[in-house]
């Protein structure tokens, strides 16, 4: 060995781990197939334990790679290519999946964990096919490990002297989105492998009853949930980072995640039909195969360079061929097994009526599959057209919208209509009873929009330019229809539940949802979809303007030249700020936004130019979120609604981008977007996420809550834990959204400009010991950062502006030119200090801007909130316990006692019957 060849023990052990895992995976494939085929329990167990061992080895390799990043082991090429010593620890960890090599290992790692859990849970239940399941999973693992070991080894080392410093993660990727967006998508992709493996296992073993369906439904729900999360995070990332004012562009990489989302959603619906009616067995198997196929196909699209994307132009023909071969293998084996078992997949059940829930689900499936096909076809159009006539053709976002919008609206109709239809056949009377209220809600909404917001009547092209319809109005009406439908279902369920249990509405609602989580959790998801579509409609009302301001107000002799109006807003370009630190140069424009004369925000759109990465520039947009009437006090609603503007009532984002500048003259090019309703896109996703979580609540958790043997405190505590877990996850999501969309500029506190001596932190510093300093230390920065620092300490641009505001406020002079505040005496400084605090409390409508609340009531309110919440939990918990005690009593009394426990099958049937009758 050449003594000068660099040596990394991490790389050595990591490579050994990968090679060992590779060999073990190959063994698992052979043992799993042979074990089930020859009914050898020893071989099957061997493959199962091999899978667990594989997971351990991959976990070791992953931990080693992360350790290499954290310890700056630049002997390893991958570590040197995507990290450096100056990166924060979080970004070193995220570098794991920041490059191609690491992202493949991350895929293998997540799949190894998921498969271990899936096998542990299902090992005994599916003895006769678990070997095939393990083998299928391990074939996938062998493929990805082949890529890793033979072409994309993340532990490959330099053969010569390694660099002392790494290249670093590209600055465009150094933000918190990188921490959460790629893992969400990868998790969604990987989760689709489990249903596929069970589907292949069922086909291979011939065990095609519904047992395998129950095992995979939750994994497909996880796939759906994480793909939804990944898609919305990607959209939010694009909205915040790219500066084009939008969140979805039908980019091939975006489409790669959307296609399996469509088919996963289709499966979640058609699985219900198979469970209820024993129909669509073959269809469900096709869906799990197609969903998995699309996850691999999407990965192939993004990594091979077969399509052009904003994400990467790189081409890798060898990788492309490897993926094509694997895709072909998937298709050949899956379809072969389907044909082989075709006779076992037929069903004697037929559709009884077109006006039935089954048919609505079937139509839903067709549309979803159609959507997946359309997206796939249009994304691959360049490759397909090149294959046919040698020229690459593609379509833009406008064409995608023309085709996908009407398909989406049909899905929206079905999401509201299907829950109202009966299984097998819906009678005319039931049809009337079910649809009258949702239709009425829709009708009132449409009439209201026509009268109150005539802009909603504008026409849009669908399918072709010649077919124009008032799509926005139809959209709003359908959203109302869905909300009315879901609301009606909940209301009727609540009535039945209250009648059966005698509980109060709150406990009945909780009990209803927990006892039928799939149904009512699914309804919540549908509600989220309706809210999403409401947000999507805002795209049609987006407005944009470019403005060039020669001089900022701070430099201009005529300050009116620095102002311009757009929509209902006035913008004042105040100044251009140039700062720099160790990492980057930043040019920031300070822009004040006024709405009907009142200052609503001062924003700091910027251009950052990183020193590393060959002068990589990024656009830092400034987003001000206006929540419509939900942000206005009740006294201001009438005026807001009176303006009859969609954006005023339902909110919009004011999105400011610094598109160009001249440092010498202070000239700034600004682009302003007004994006109505976009807030509802993020809200809609939160509702969808909540519904998904509800659906994922395991039966064991509900059973524990209902078990009569536990103590009262224990049961109330378990309910509290359940609510806190769900609430905590949502609060986490919401806080991410809130931090990102706080009514402040995008540049976050602490991430701005480095040490106190440079950047925003250095701007507008007070004299030590002055009234300004005292006020700055007492007032909290409103930038929305999690640290909740004072204006004095916070390093962001908002804090710099607020410090300026305090200084200007205390430096006011009256008509005679005399200072308003006496800052020379202690009493005067005290008065000035109190005045500043009052001014901020009034401006921000509450004492939340104070580090130390001034009144007793300020301390009291949080305490009352906590006590009130605990009281609510105790009330709900006691009722829950009360029902449990009743069950225990009923059990002791004998079979004649009333059955009220939600986990009881007889009760569930009774609830179903009553709900069906009330429908």
């Amino acid at each position, binding site marked *: 060995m050449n003594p000068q060849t660099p040596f990394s023990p991490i790389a050595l052990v990591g490579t050994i781990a990968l090679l060992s895992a590779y060999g073990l995976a190959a063994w698992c494939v052979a043992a799993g197939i042979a074990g089930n085929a020859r009914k050898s329990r020893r071989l099957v167990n061997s493959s199962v334990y091999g899978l667990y061992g594989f997971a351990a080895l991959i976990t070791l390799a992953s931990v080693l790679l992360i350790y290499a990043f954290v310890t700056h082991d630049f002997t390893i090429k991958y570590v040197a290519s*995507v990290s450096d010593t100056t990166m924060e620890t979080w970004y070193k960890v995220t570098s794991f999946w*920041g*490059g*191609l090599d690491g*992202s493949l290992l991350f895929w293998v790692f997540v799949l190894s964990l998921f498969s271990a859990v899936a096998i542990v849970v299902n090992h005994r239940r599916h003895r006769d096919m678990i070997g095939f399941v393990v083998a299928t999973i391990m074939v996938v693992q062998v493929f990805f490990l082949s890529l890793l070991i033979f072409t994309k080894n993340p532990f490959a080392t330099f053969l010569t002297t390694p660099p002392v410093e790494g290249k670093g993660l*590209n*600055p*465009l*990727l150094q933000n918190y989105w990188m921490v959460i967006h790629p893992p969400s998508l990868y998790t969604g992709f990987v989760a689709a492998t489990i249903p596929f493996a069970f589907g292949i296992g069922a086909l291979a073993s011939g065990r095609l009853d519904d047992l395998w369906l129950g095992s995979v439904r939750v994994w497909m729900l996880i796939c759906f949930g994480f793909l939804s999360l990944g898609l919305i995070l990607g959209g939010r990332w694009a909205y915040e980072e790219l*500066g*084009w004012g939008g969140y979805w562009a039908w980019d091939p990489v975006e489409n790669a995640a959307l296609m399996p989302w469509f088919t996963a959603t289709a499966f979640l619906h058609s699985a219900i039909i198979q469970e209820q009616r024993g129909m669509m067995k073959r269809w469900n198997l096709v869906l799990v195969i197609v969903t998995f196929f699309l996850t691999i196909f999407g990965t192939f699209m*993004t*990594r091979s*360079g077969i399509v*052009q*994307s*904003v*994400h*990467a*132009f*790189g*081409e*890798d*023909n*060898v*990788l492309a061929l490897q993926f094509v071969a694997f895709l072909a293998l998937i298709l050949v084996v899956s379809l072969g097994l389907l044909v082989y078992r075709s006779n076992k997949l037929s069903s004697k059940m037929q559709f009884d009526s077109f006006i039935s829930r089954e048919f609505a689900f079937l139509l839903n499936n067709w549309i979803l599959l*159609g959507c997946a096909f*359309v997206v796939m*076809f*249009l994304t691959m*159009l*360049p490759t397909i*057209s090149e294959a046919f006539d040698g*020229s*690459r*053709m*593609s*379509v*833009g976002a406008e*064409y995608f919208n023309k*085709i996908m919008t009407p398909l989406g609206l049909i899905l929206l109709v079905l999401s509201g209509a299907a829950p109202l239809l009966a299984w097998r056949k819906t009678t005319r009377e039931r049809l009337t009873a079910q649809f009258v209220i949702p239709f009425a809600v829709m009708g009132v909404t449409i009439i209201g929009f026509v009268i109150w917001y005539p802009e909603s009547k504008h026409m849009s092209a669908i*399918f*072709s330019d010649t077919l124009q319809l008032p799509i926005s109005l139809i959209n709003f009406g359908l959203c109302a229809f869905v909300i009315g439908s879901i609301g009606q279902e909940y209301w009727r369920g609540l009535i039945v539940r209250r009648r059966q249990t005698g509980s109060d509405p709150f406990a009945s609602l909780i009990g209803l949802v927990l006892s039928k989580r799939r149904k009512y959790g699914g309804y919540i998801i549908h509600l989220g979809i309706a809210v999403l579509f409401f947000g999507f409609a805002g795209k049609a009302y987006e407005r944009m303007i*470019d*403005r*060039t301001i020669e001089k900022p107000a701070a430099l201009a002799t005529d300050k009116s030249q620095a102002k311009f109006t757009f929509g209902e807003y006035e913008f004042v370009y105040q100044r251009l700020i140039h700062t720099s630190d160790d990492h980057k140069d930043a040019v920031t424009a300070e822009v004040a936004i006024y709405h009907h004369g009142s200052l609503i925000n001062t924003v700091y759109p910027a251009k950052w130019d990183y020193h590393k*990465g060959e*002068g*990589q*520039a*990024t*656009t830092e947009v400034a987003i001000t979120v206006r929540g419509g009437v939900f942000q206005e006090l009740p006294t201001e609603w009438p005026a807001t609604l009176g303006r009859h503007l969609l954006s005023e009532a339902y909110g919009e984002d004011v999105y400011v*981008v610094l*598109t*160009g500048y001249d440092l010498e003259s202070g*000239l700034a*090019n600004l*682009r302003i977007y007004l994006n109505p309703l976009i807030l509802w896109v993020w809200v809609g996703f939160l509702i969808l996420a909540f519904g998904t979580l509800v659906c994922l609540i395991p039966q064991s958790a509900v059973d524990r809550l209902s078990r009569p043997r536990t103590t009262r405190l224990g049961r109330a505590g378990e309910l509290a834990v359940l609510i806190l877990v769900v609430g905590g996850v949502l609060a986490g999501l919401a806080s991410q959204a809130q931090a990102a969309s706080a009514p402040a500029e995008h540049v976050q506190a602490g991430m701005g400009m480095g040490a106190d001596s440079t950047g925003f932190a250095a701007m507008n510093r007070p004299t030590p010991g002055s009234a300004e300093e005292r006020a700055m230390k007492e007032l909290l920065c409103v930038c929305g950062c999690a640290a909740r620092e004072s204006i004095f300490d916070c390093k962001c641009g908002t804090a710099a502006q607020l410090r300026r505001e305090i200084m200007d406020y205390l430096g006011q002079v009256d008509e005679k030119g005399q200072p308003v505040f006496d800052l020379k005496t202690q009493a005067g400084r005290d008065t000035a200090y109190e005045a500043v605090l009052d001014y901020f409390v009034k401006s921000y409508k509450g004492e939340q801007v104070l580090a130390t609340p001034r009144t007793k009531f300020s301390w009291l309110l949080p305490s009352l909130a906590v006590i009130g919440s605990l009281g609510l939990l105790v009330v709900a918990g006691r009722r829950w316990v009360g029902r449990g005690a009743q069950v225990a009593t009923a059990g002791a009394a004998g079979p004649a006692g009333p059955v009220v426990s939600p986990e009881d099958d007889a009760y569930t049937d009774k609830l179903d019957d009553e709900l069906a009758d009330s429908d």
Partner: protein
Amino acid sequence: MDNSTLGKIVLTVAVAVGGVGFLVKSSISSAQHYKMVDDLLASDLSSWQGKELKVHGWVESGSIHESIVNQETHRTFLLQKGGKKIRVFSAGPKPDTFKDQSEVVATGHLVPAGQMKQLAESLGVAIESDIPYVVDSTELMAKCPSKYDGASINQKQLAPEFK
């Protein structure tokens, strides 16, 4: 096979074929044509009039000129590949990664060079006389800071000066 099943199959096939046929026809009529710069210039440029193009190339060093016209930033630059060049005009914000030698796809239409002469003069450039058409671009897409670099074998396709 009974009539009901046959009917369902026929209906399904009809819907599928009809849908696919509509999609193919309408997408082709709305399609943007992707061309590398050298391939485009080797073809009959007049045949591309009225069609939307995506022209792929690399920005020639020193060719970017920008100016503000009517409140909006206008720019022009030369997109090149394999020694062939074409002039591109665009307006509005540019991608963050747009700079000399960056890899760019410009979406737009070919227009006679004379139509952009006045704009070119306001930007301080003279339109090349040997190319009768220029690209009037509505969208610029520049290479993303890549997580995934292309395989080294493909680097040979780059123009020599970029190696």
